[in-house]
């Protein structure tokens, strides 16, 4: 075997291998998100975060504007404390509402931000005061069952006729 052609093929092999690793890191993995802008951090307190996990996206109007960095529990108030990083190009008003939604019935959960009308903007270290917890399907169902039971089971209320006011009452926007 000619040494030059050996070198050539070993070079091809090594380059292919490195290309495969780069493909795995960039295309399959999320190395790109390591290069995400630093952004500023705010915290939000929730009664219940459901299945929210660190690195879950933070979206506003469906656009990813940040990421959940840490989730902890306040030992005094027993509320979940989520630290959120928002990319620097996005500014939100101080009265922004943070809510936990899930994408589809079985989908992953994310934090949704709805900006309000305040003139002061959120900045590093601020706390989002208005939050809405994750909807728990079990609670919703049991609420529905109890309301059905209290009706005495006489009038066959169709599902759509459940008073809409009850649903936000379960996990209502808390002050």
């Amino acid at each position, binding site marked *: *075997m000619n*040494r030059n052609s*050996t*070198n050539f*093929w*070993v070079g*091809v*092999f*090594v380059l*292919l*291998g*490195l*290309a*495969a*690793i780069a*493909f*795995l*890191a960039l*295309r*399959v*993995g*999320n*190395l*790109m998100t*390591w290069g995400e802008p630093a952004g500023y951090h705010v915290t939000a307190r929730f009664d219940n975060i459901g299945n929210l*996990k660190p690195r879950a996206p933070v979206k506003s109007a469906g656009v990813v504007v940040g990421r959940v960095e840490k989730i902890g529990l306040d030992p005094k108030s027993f509320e979940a404390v989520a630290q959120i990083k928002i990319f620097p190009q996005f500014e939100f008003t101080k009265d922004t509402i943070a809510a936990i939604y899930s994408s589809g019935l*079985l989908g*992953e959960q994310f934090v949704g931000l709805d900006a309000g009308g305040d003139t002061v903007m959120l900045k590093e270290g601020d706390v989002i005061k208005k939050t809405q917890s994750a909807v728990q399907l079990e609670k919703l169902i049991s609420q529905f069952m109890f309301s059905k039971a209290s009706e005495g089971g006489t009038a066959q209320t169709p599902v759509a006729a459940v008073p809409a006011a009850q649903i936000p009452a379960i996990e209502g926007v808390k002050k």
Partner: protein
Amino acid sequence: MPIRTSIGAVGEKAANTVERIGYFSRFVVGVLRSTPAVFSRFSLTLREVYFAGVFSLVIISVSGLFVGMVLALQGYETLSIFGATESMGVLVALSLVRELGPVVAALLFASRAGSAMTAEIGLMKTTEQLKAMEMMAVDPIARVVAPRFWAGVISMPLLAAIFSAMGIFGGYLVAVKLIGIDPGAFWGQMQAAVDVRHDILNGVIKSIVFGIAVSAIAVYQGYAAKPTAEGVSAATTRTVVTSSLAILAIDFILTVFMFRGTGL
């Protein structure tokens, strides 16, 4: 006295095992000790990378492609029950990067390149080429064994990465082109679920460890082979069997340490 002889047989087996482990360890230390010599004459290792790595490219990429395609087909069966076919990318990528890529590539490498290393070194021993080198004051471990060992260690992670990449490409072909899953969901969910450090780096670490294990076993079996035709053939078989079992056992241990109790 049958009891005495049977206990004696156990004792002899134990002593032999300990002796073999000791011989193997001393051999590996000897190989590692000649590392500076290997890297100062790197063209020898390069030649072995050519034989071990480049020649394994075809089998590795074709197997990877088919494993990925079958994963996608089988995954579709199960995922469609839950209406979660969009998670196909996650399924294919995580199974390949964490487990199948390193393990199957290592198994293929052991049968394709490990057996060749053993046979080559074993035949060199049988035809007394190793002895001839010693006569000429050339250390056969530094000249013959260590370059092959290092070539295996270098090739293994590259081959495993190629295997995983080809597998994901195969999964993409079946999932997106054949079944018609949305490519955005396929790649997007994959990227959201696969972590570079936790999944990909651990997979690469696994394949490096497998490379060390397979290469050490292959060169050792060749070097310790009985210098006869049967001896070389038995050593080649032992290389494939021992390294396959070693890969699976090491994989279990590594998986316990890497992915235990970490949710997804």
